[in-house]
């Protein structure tokens, strides 16, 4: 063999790929975002609706209040279903609702809120869906109840009357 470097390096590369795949396989949680209950709110630089500046999420969630982060999208059918629950929760003074608009088109999102009402105090614009992954969300809709900068409860899927009562009992 004239040149042994090439076969050796290619073999080496394949061994590395093998190890990575092997580890990925062992780690059964891969691609399932961690459930971040009792975790701190992730610190992210995000864009808000109708605002060109970026804000850090830590600033949005002040420590003395309850927050409900709701991940939604105008194209998401179950989001329509849970919307009345959010509108109901809006009336509670001890709770602020923060929306995270997931992989959506601004125009459609606006129409959605005009049609069904806007329960959100602030809306984070997550056009690529990457913030939602950082939050540990599986998809839309999902809601996180936050107190003292910590996630205390996670709701996967649309909110219903049961979760509504539960949220109310939490913030009492």
């Amino acid at each position, binding site marked *: 063999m004239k040149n042994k470097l090439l076969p050796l390096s290619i073999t080496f590369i394949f061994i590395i790929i093998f190890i990575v795949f092997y580890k*990925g396989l062992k780690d059964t949680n891969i*691609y399932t975002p961690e459930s971040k209950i009792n975790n701190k709110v992730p610190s992210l630089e995000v864009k808000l609706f109708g605002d060109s500046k970026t804000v850090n999420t830590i600033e949005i969630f002040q420590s003395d209040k309850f927050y409900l982060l709701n991940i939604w999208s105008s194209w998401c059918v179950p989001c329509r279903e849970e919307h009345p629950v959010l509108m109901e929760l809006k009336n509670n003074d001890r709770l602020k609702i923060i929306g995270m608009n997931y992989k959506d088109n601004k125009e459609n999102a606006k129409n959605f809120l005009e*049609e069904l009402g806007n329960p959100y105090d602030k809306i984070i614009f997550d056009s690529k*869906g990457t913030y939602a992954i950082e939050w540990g969300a599986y998809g839309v809709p999902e809601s996180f109840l936050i107190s003292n900068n910590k996630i205390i409860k996670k709701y996967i899927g649309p909110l219903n009357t049961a979760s509504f009562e539960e949220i109310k009992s939490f913030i009492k």
Partner: protein
Amino acid sequence: MLYSVIGNYSLLLGLFFGLVLFYLSVINFRNSQVLDTKILSFTFLQFFLVVISFLCLVLSFVVSDFSNETVFNNSHTTKPIFYKIAGTWGNHEGSLLLWLLVLTLFILIFLVKTKNQPIKYRILTLVFQQIIIVGFFIFLIKTSNPFNHIYPIPTEGLGLNPILQDPALVIHPPILYLGYVGSSIIFSSALAATSLNLVSKKWASHIKKWVLSSWVFLTLGILLGSIWAYYELGWGGFWFWDPVENVSLMPWLALTTLLHCVLVLEKKLILTSWVIILSISTFALSMSGTFLVRSGILNSVHTFANDPERGLFILIFLFSLIFLSLFIFFFFHNPSKNNPSSFSFLSKETAIIINNWFMMYFLSVVLIGTIYPIFLDVLSSQKISVGPPFYHKLIIPFLIPFLLIMAIGPKLKWIKSNLEDKIYLITLLVVSILLSILIVKNFSSNFLINTILISGAFYLFFITLRDFFIKGFKNLAQNTAHFGFSLLILSILFNNLFSTETITNLKVGETFENSKTKIIFENISQKEEKNYKSIVAEFTIQDSKGKMENLSPELRIYNQPNIVTSEADIKTTLLSDKFIVINLVPNQEFFNVRYQVKPFMLWIWISVILISVGGLMSFLKKEYEK
């Protein structure tokens, strides 16, 4: 019950024959007598056993034998007979059995069709192919046996996922597998030819048939999947850069490149390393596709079951094959012997090599986009999602030179040429540019890139169109495929530029109106089918010219499993598709209505068919013309 037992034992016997064949071929390496008598009949027997096993599974589905775990998990008594049969390969176990069926069929065809090839080469190909077949037998029997029993016997099955109950999905997997598995023959044969130093023009013209047939099947298989996604998933798109779509696109890109290299090798005895490496990678990519999809390392619509044990088996199997082929390539392949005849810059070879590199670039983009998230997660626990913008940004700009070289390349001669008839080449380029400026000028966004891209596609379009008239039957196959490709790019571009979408909520009797269209929600009715209830909505669409069209999208509520699917209604005409889909909004009287006008949809399908027809013509042609 009985069928499961027979099926199970046929599988075990098939594995046994695989080992016997492996042993026989190794000890009788030079013996031509044994090959065409004993070995051939054992190969046939192995194929026959897999057929029996497959038929047993089909019958278990037909009679709804729920003592069989696979049937229980994927079937239901109320399912129509058509989908009971199709359910056989609509699940992990059954689809692997189908894969095995095609594997054994192809090696049989290979042995029958290659009687004029050197005996050692045929036996060695069989050896490599049996390694793959035995590997799949063990995988099937050990980790995903389709004939597992359940006791006590359930009275009803769990049903097949309704989105899979669709005619396109019935033939999509078998066609795709013919393509994937065809690449295994190319793989084994390339390894055999390399080991024996037989990579020659003669070998190229023999393996070309396999490359072409796999390529045609793979192309059609991808097309069917795409058509299904278009009307069943209800997003109005046909390609989503989903990991599973990507894993079918990667072998296709490798196979397309291989096809061009084999055509060159057949004429010139150059690019031997290209051919061998591509033969190996095509199959390795098909296998990695299986790994990525079946192990659950990636999540997607196609993930049947997440079972790390299965993943581990395929991973080890796949990498053993990769290391085996690397070993053979580096130790046996001797490129210095096939003295590459020098060729000038302006020649067909150069054009093909340049476009090969472009293809390799596209392939790496798709590969990185698909597996990078896994790497990142394993190495740094970060999660990212790679979506269409990534692929569009990296692929689209490079399509332009690709299209131009594709247009001019075939005009060049082998080894050395100076372009004759430059005039028409330039005239057509000018015409293409002017035409695309005319089309794009009303669109302010991305004016430049769209104009250049459309010009490139038009250029290829006109040049291939001209060749149909000037050259007639000469190079007809290549010309058809290239023409199809230009048509595909044009249709996709126009489709993206001119599609319109309206999303609204409507109650029965309401009307939505904007400057271009009027959507009237006329009526709603219910129907009761065998395994689902259906809600049919009737819409009348009126366009700006006052032309009326009736569309009736449907919601299907399946009983088992209890899932609601939306069936889009699509009115296809030559120039555009009208696509409407409704979604249920729970506890509300209104429906979510999504209406799209998508120009040139039909032409996307037609152009892909044209591309495959090109491949088919080349397959049927006796000899590659000068």
